[in-house]
């Protein structure tokens, strides 16, 4: 396992059956991928169109994140893409799940992952402030 703690959080999320892909991303950029870089093969067929749709959604996130936008999602073909936005930023935890997934349970674990990533980011900023 690489040393990136955020990638470790994504690895844990990817172990859930219904999480086909997950990443930390912003518009036109994937900031952090899970360590093993491998998404469910079913996502590969639709990845290009989902990625384009994601970038359009990030445009909305950029506009409204500061106003308190928390989550967004869209359904495309047999998949749903969930965005859990990091407050006051243009970044989000993104996951792709099957359209038939039991979303309630996934939402809880997405929220736990968001909280954990936020706490890692805050800790990292504190360390940087100390060393600066």
């Amino acid at each position: 396992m690489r040393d990136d703690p955020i990638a470790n959080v994504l690895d844990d999320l990817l172990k859930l059956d219904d999480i086909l892909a997950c990443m930390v991303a912003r518009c036109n950029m994937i900031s952090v991928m899970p360590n093993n870089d491998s998404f469910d093969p079913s996502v590969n067929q639709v990845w290009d169109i989902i990625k384009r749709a994601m970038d359009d959604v990030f445009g909305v996130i950029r506009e409204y994140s500061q106003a308190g936008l928390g989550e967004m999602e869209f359904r495309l073909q047999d998949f749903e893409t969930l965005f859990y936005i990091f407050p006051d930023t243009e970044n989000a935890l993104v996951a792709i799940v099957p359209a038939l997934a039991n979303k309630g349970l996934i939402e809880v674990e997405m929220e736990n992952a968001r909280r954990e990533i936020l706490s890692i980011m805050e800790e990292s900023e504190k360390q940087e402030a100390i060393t600066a």
Partner: protein
Amino acid sequence: MFYWKGCQIGTINDNFEVALGMSRKWDAREAGREVARDVIQKLKRPPSFFLLFSTIHYEKHGGFEEFLAGVWDVLPKGTPLIGGTVAGFQNNYGCYCHGATALAVYNPHIDVAVGVGYNTKRSPKKAAFSCLKQIKDGLDHSSYSQKCIIDIISGGLVPQMLGIGRKKVLRGMTSVLALYLSSLSLYLLQKGIGREEDVLQVISDKMNDFYILHGSSMDDGKAFSNFQFCNYEVGSNMAVALGFACDAHISLFSTHNLKESVSLPRVKIIRNGVGIRKINNKPALKEFLRILNWPEEYFDEQLFKRTYFYPIGFKKNNQWISRVIAIICGNVMITTNKLEGDEFAVLSFNGKDVLQGVTDTISKHGIERPAFGLISSCAARLQALGIQSFQVHHELYSYFQDHPFILFYSGGEGSKKPHEELYYGNESFHSLVVS
């Protein structure tokens, strides 16, 4: 933010020492060890009993035998233990749909007994009597005044039928075949409806002076498998129960906060009671869709996304009891558990009412320093509320603070107060507080 590692959650008062533990590891053995270690290191004395809840994930990450073996690597031998798989859980640390949590209780003035019954789907009453005998043998001579049973019973499993697979919506000839095969599946393979209420009714009738808190064991909502734990044993289609007697104060309050939405007239139930075949003398599904003004396409494999919010209710003792529509077989709507009585309606599930119900119910306990709390809540509430489940956690934590509690999300819940009738339902919330 509720920190887990390094945060001690436990209660010590004159009567009780209680500790809460959790693991979010993926490896079954490691998770078992961690959840037990997290509890034991907070207790000064060996526990009087141990309650263990886990999500289904360890089935594919080592298996539950390994999980329980990990627990016993740490837990003192002979500790009375029961538990089972649940869709998710809440505790003082947060809300989770993956991992394991445990509550250990020590009290110098307590009698404890554990019971197990087998083949709950094939012979629910036999399973109940077997389980009860062990509880009675252990507690009959107890001199303590307050008695309680916490039980976990295997919940329903969607049968997998040859050529049909595991489907929630069946049409045409496959639906006729499925209805016929479902009875065979239940008795031969023990896959089908849970029949938990049949087990519970026996327990309730025979232990009339007990508090009872029940949860139906389940997986992550797929209804493919579920497991129960009793001491060193892991299995399925089991009823496991832990009875204790002490002089503590016990309080129990329940709610569902569902509202009657629209009446269902002249309902005809199917023979085994677990479904509706006619409404208004017309085929049930067609008439149900007409009454709600829903298109037929609404009932597809995403069934639960609709039916969680519109459960079927029947009136019993002047209160609505709810059931979730779980499978559609042609025009027959199969529910999660039995329907009774003459008065039926569609109930509505509204997130705001549900949250208010939690606040109102918890506040009824009125206990300033609880020793611990246990809550059985329907997994449908978790599915429906999703991320808003964290608001439920906020309410619970506001009440319990650092006094340990576990809310476990089950596939059917029930409770009973001494000398009162059993309540068994779906989409409900039952809270037990001991102090």
